[in-house]
């Protein structure tokens, strides 16, 4: 590209596109409305919530601190535990699933072995099996093994990520040259060392992508823990908040203003992942553009 065309393209690109920018403004509003509602309403007490004031603006009595205190002390502070559980399930499940996917994807891409074609066909089929359809039978199996109502009941099934394997396979096949591996073998390095020192660094962008997808999927998980867990101290925050919503909807919250707590809980629960996404922008944007940048 010559300098002239670059500046020409700059000039074109820097056009204000005012109508489009306005449209974008409306889109942003749409995507942010629920967040705004939650932020505003987590500051209200029960009369503020239900009293018929403007639902999109603060009530006279702004009480973030009070609601936060209620949230973290209600039921002996179980909310914090739920957040911790969510983080545990997301990290353990996400890291585990990614590890398995990296190993298997690399194996599929770089080795020939009996059953490889068949295995890969089965894998592609598995990408399409709805995970939710597996929950009920897995639950029955686990209950016969006495594994329900333990953290393993949530973490172990999360390790399965066929799409991650597929993604790693495609990436490893393209990004890791056979010649490099063969060179390593000629030098006498073991397969494990070759994988760790040669292949893994080359696969890093795809690893980040798969990790991101797995962690988010595990963090969002609801159906699986809902079916598996009965001890509320093992709940992730999704199931916990749902339980509170059920309690608020039934008669038995007593005199605690549970709706305020639920709304505050919803707000607090989304903060960690939002922060993670904002901080890790460089990584996930890079990860998601795998293959189309090159």
């Amino acid at each position, binding site marked *: 590209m010559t300098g002239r065309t670059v500046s020409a393209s700059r000039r074109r690109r820097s056009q204000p596109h005012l109508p489009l920018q306005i449209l974008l403004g409306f889109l942003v509003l749409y995507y942010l409305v629920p967040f705004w509602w939650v932020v505003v309403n987590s500051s209200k*007490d*029960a*009369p503020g*919530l*239900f*009293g*018929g004031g403007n639902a999109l603006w603060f009530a006279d009595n702004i009480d973030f601190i009070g609601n936060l205190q209620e949230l973290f002390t209600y*039921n*002996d502070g179980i909310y914090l535990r739920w957040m*911790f559980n969510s983080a*545990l399930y997301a*990290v*353990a499940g996400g*890291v*585990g699933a990614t*590890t*398995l996917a990296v*190993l298997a994807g690399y194996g599929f891409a770089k080795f020939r072995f009996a059953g490889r074609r068949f295995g890969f066909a089965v894998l592609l089929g598995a990408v399409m099996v709805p995970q939710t359809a597996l929950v009920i039978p897995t*639950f*029955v199996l686990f*209950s*016969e093994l*006495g594994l*329900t*109502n*333990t*953290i393993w009941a949530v*973490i172990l099934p999360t390790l399965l990520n066929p799409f991650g394997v597929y993604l790693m396979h495609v990436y490893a096949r393209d990004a890791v040259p056979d010649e490099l591996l063969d060179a390593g073998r000629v030098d006498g*390095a*073991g*397969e*494990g*060392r070759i*994988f*760790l020192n040669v292949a893994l660094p080359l696969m890093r962008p795809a690893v980040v992508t798969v990790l991101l997808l797995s962690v988010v999927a595990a963090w969002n998980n609801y159906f699986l823990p809902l*079916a598996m867990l*009965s*001890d*509320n*101290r*093992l709940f992730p925050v999704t199931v916990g908040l749902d*339980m509170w919503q*059920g*309690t*608020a*909807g*039934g*008669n*038995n*919250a*007593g*005199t*605690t*203003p*549970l*709706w305020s707590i639920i709304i505050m809980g919803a707000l607090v629960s989304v903060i960690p992942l939002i922060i993670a996404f904002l901080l890790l922008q460089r990584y996930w944007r890079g990860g998601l553009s795998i293959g189309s940048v090159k």
Partner: protein
Amino acid sequence: MKRKPFLGAVSVFAMASALVACSSGDDASSGGGGGGASGCTNSIPKEDLPVVSMWAWYPNMDKAIDNFNEQNDEVQVCWTNVGEGGDEYDKFQTAISSGTGAPDVIMLEADRISTYQIQDALVDISDYGYDEVADNYGEGAWKDVSIGDAIYGVPVDGGPMGMIYRTDIFEQYDITPPTTWAEYEQAAQKVKDAGGPLFGDLGANVPALIMALQIQKGATPFEYDPTQPETIGINLNDQASKDVLDYWAGLVDQGLVGTQDHFTPEYISGVIKGDYATYISAAWTPGYLTGSGVGEGKDAGKFAVAPLPQWDPSSPVQVNWGGSAFSVTSQADDPELAAKVAYGVYADEETLTDGWTNQIIFPLNLNALHDPEFVNLHSEFFGGQQANKEVYVPAANAYEGFTYSPFQEYYYDAMTKQLAAINEGSISGSEAADRLQDDVVGYAEEQGFTVQ
């Protein structure tokens, strides 16, 4: 040499597992206690006594358990809250199906007892100390937790029904509390004609309320004799059932009542703003509304309660909506010990008093129900009205008990669908009753019952 580096690769995964194992250490040690109990929310003061596990969701359950454990020298309770109503039932059902994981004692609403009894999930506790406490509860209360002569639960709280109303709206439109359903409709019409708010609400998600109102008119939804468990009588479209559904469908059709689901923030908002002049409800409702923030703002002191309107004022019928009991599950290691807990928890004076003074329960225990302090209580929510004395206690005393089906959940779901159809205006009340009958009879037959 060949394998060693590979182990390094696997160690990434091992590290992930280790992370999990470390951070879950304390769960593993405290969980998995006896009788399928999974970790107690309370601490157990007398550690050398046998422990009975329990699921319950009353908000002052922690106090009830502490009181019980302190006073009892035979057994200690390990309590946890796995969710309210349906959430708990799903988990209990799960535990029944898998044969493990249920607590020794479980809180159930009375209408679910048949459901679990037919699956052999509950223990008949009539031989484990029933005689000692028989006089503590009324006949209706015992009937709700009995199947034939067998006792499958200990009553704790009930839901005798009444009509909560807005004094400001009644004054504004010059209405006195209707005593019959005919008057209720007239009053509703009068308010509407004067441009007033809705008079009440038909929530699709409160089938148990509608069932109670049908029984009030003389319907007997289910007839079930435990000595012949394979036959059941189902009468969901008899004249009384149809009349009640037609009545409410008529109110909906004329725009006299709303069609909002109950127990939602939307409904609470409506109650606070005065969108509904009345709320046909049970004795636990004031507590529920207070907890949701009703009666704290501009609506403070605007609520009062009157007896439930009647069909025939010369022979009034009192009905019940909601209320719970403690049952012993068949997964209990020591049913007799568990029965002691079921009979004893939430039955001491201190807990009961805490329960009713904080509007958590409407007690069925006669020691509380007939306690002058309770009867004469001036309710803050009702602006000082003696609600118990005027409405709820007489209703509780006159309540005769219901017979529930062993597939109550299916029945409620089916009724919710029909109520939703009524609210949409797509069918009449009678049609809804006929469809409900077909639906539930079909399910019962599919489940192997002979329907009479």
